[in-house]
């Protein structure tokens, strides 16, 4: 340590000869017993560097994040209180709560909210249950364990758009793969695009396909972090595999399960690309009867198809309020979970 300080002082001495060093600074440094004048300039630079560099390091992130995420969030709230039309962007007039009132009295809004909830439920629940089972299997000592994991994750590499185009074809009424397979089981052709539950199921299945492997990996990571002596003591108590899974694995995974529920719920709230592309040419309507029009889809439809950006902003903020509600519930549950331990 001392040798390096020496080195610093040494370089400072040589810098002392440089023209333009304020004499006062040099004297001040001598007064404090420093070996050379420019040392104070150096140490001031050093101290300035220590102080300022953390801000310099976080600045690019916060400037960009602020400009393109936080500021727009607030502006969306502002626009939701205005009449903003796509056809006349410069002409914005104050609307007060008109856009929100308009929403609450619109059947389409409530329909979209209900669809979002239903599709969210039938995509999230089977997905997480399957992921839990899959993670349990992946947790065994497997031949080629990495290969299995990568294979389970490949749907995640497929974009929403690509996956939906493929599934739409698989679900086509006439000559589609799904209906063809079903006919072996004596099930008549289902009109996946037009029927109520059929279309919602089809849209959900795309979500389930894309995310089950991803969630399984998250559960697997949590399972591997469970201390093995918990299993050993359970085994000593005579618990079989199933009981161990139920009484050791599941309770240990509880925070992770809560985490995945929250993340999946947030994902379900903003569901958009799947129903849009599943609907084909008039996708933003979410089917002829709006049977799979989600909130995200409704927002896009109102904003960029109908051209009412003020109303679209109000829908976006309604989604945000729903998410805040979910976050609050999550916080409550987490607290309870901690207390119960």
């Amino acid at each position, binding site marked *: 340590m001392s040798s*390096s300080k020496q080195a610093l002082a040494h370089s400072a001495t040589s810098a002392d000869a440089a023209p333009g060093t304020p004499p006062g600074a040099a004297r001040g440094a001598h007064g404090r017993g420093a070996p050379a004048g420019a040392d104070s300039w150096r140490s001031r630079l050093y101290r300035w*560097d220590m102080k300022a*560099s*953390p801000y*310099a*390091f*976080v600045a690019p*992130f*916060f400037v*960009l*994040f602020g400009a*393109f*995420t*936080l500021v*727009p969030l607030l*502006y969306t709230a502002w*626009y939701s209180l205005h009449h903003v039309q796509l056809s006349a*962007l410069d002409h914005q007039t104050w609307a007060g709560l008109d856009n929100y009132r308009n929403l609450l009295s619109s059947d389409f809004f409530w329909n979209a909210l209900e669809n979002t909830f239903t599709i969210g439920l039938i995509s999230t629940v089977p997905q997480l249950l399957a992921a839990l089972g899959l993670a349990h*299997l992946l*947790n065994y*000592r*497997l031949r080629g364990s990495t290969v*299995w*994991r*990568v*294979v*389970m994750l*490949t*749907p*995640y*590499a497929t*974009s929403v*758009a*690509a996956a*939906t*185009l*493929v*599934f739409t*074809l*698989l679900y086509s009424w006439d*000559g589609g793969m799904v209906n063809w397979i079903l006919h072996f089981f004596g099930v008549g052709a289902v009109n996946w695009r037009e029927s109520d539950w059929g279309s919602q199921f089809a849209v959900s299945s795309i979500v389930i396909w894309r995310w089950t492997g991803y969630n399984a*990996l*998250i559960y697997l990571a949590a399972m591997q972090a469970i201390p*093995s002596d918990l299993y*050993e003591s359970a*085994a000593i108590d005579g*618990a079989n*595999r199933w009981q*161990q*899974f139920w009484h050791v694995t599941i309770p240990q995974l509880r925070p*992770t399960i809560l985490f995945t529920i929250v993340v999946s719920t947030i994902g379900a709230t903003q569901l958009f690309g799947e129903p*849009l*592309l599943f609907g*084909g040419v008039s996708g933003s309507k979410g089917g002829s009867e709006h049977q799979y029009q989600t909130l995200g889809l409704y927002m896009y439809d109102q*904003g*960029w198809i109908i051209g009412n950006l003020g109303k679209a*902003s109000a829908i*976006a903020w309604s989604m*945000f309020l729903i*998410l805040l509600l979910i976050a609050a519930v999550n916080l409550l549950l987490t607290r309870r979970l901690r207390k119960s331990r």
Partner: protein
Amino acid sequence: MTTSELTLPATKPPRAGRRRVMGAGKQLHAGPVTYVVLTVFALASLAPLVWTAIAASRTAHRLDETPPPLWFGGNLFKNLETAWDQAGLGTAMFNSLIVAGTITVSTVLFSTLAGFAFAKLRFRFSGLLLLLTIGTMMIPPQLAVVPLYLWMSDLGWSNQLQTVILPGLVTAFGTFFMRQYLVQALPSELIEAARVDGASSLRIVWHVVFPAARPAMAVLGLLTFVFAWNDFLWPIIALNQQNPTVQVALNSLGTGYVPDQAVIMAGALLGTLPLLIAFLLFGKQIVGGIMQGAIKG
């Protein structure tokens, strides 16, 4: 535990003497049933992708017929060519490469800098700023697109790539991910030692932080690239078929831009291929990154 006990098949009923071994559930070898069920899951994961390739190798006419094709036909390259030229997948792939590449470099760089500051440096409001970062990690894109659209039209940027690059340059997830990694992976003594040697903060970042962060930077880069390549909502609002990214081109296909199902499947295949190759090459790292993020997040 002896080796013979370790290889005990998982499906054998536990005998009294073996209970202890059965207990260490996670160390057990998988039995045949496990492999069968896993194979079913694997088929379910891969079948739609394989069938995409099958459909892309057929004609639109054949795809209308029952039963649907179960094996490859001879039209793959013709359909890929049509998708590349007429559906604009060629331009789209090039654009997506620029967009996702720029976003990846920028996200990794700025996330590492900010993550390092949050993990190892002391400064005012650091706790508050970190909380802000975590708290806003899950804000849906819907909350940004209306103002972004209005600003970009004001600037006269509609249909230009910077409209989709700029909003993606950093993510809250990236910063949090790097922070979590560096808290553990970067010993504070290393930074102290560098400071004592008189290194400036910039030198420390270059010679100490970046080398220590490299594995996490690679994983974050992969995850960011996948995310940016597949990003959907804002690109389809900001761009159109004149200058599309891959997802914009696929969206056009879905809304009848080229009404040939075999070509549409060829487009879906083309647009996914780069990521499938990435998964083939770096699958292990991507899996590791997701599992790592899960434990710490």
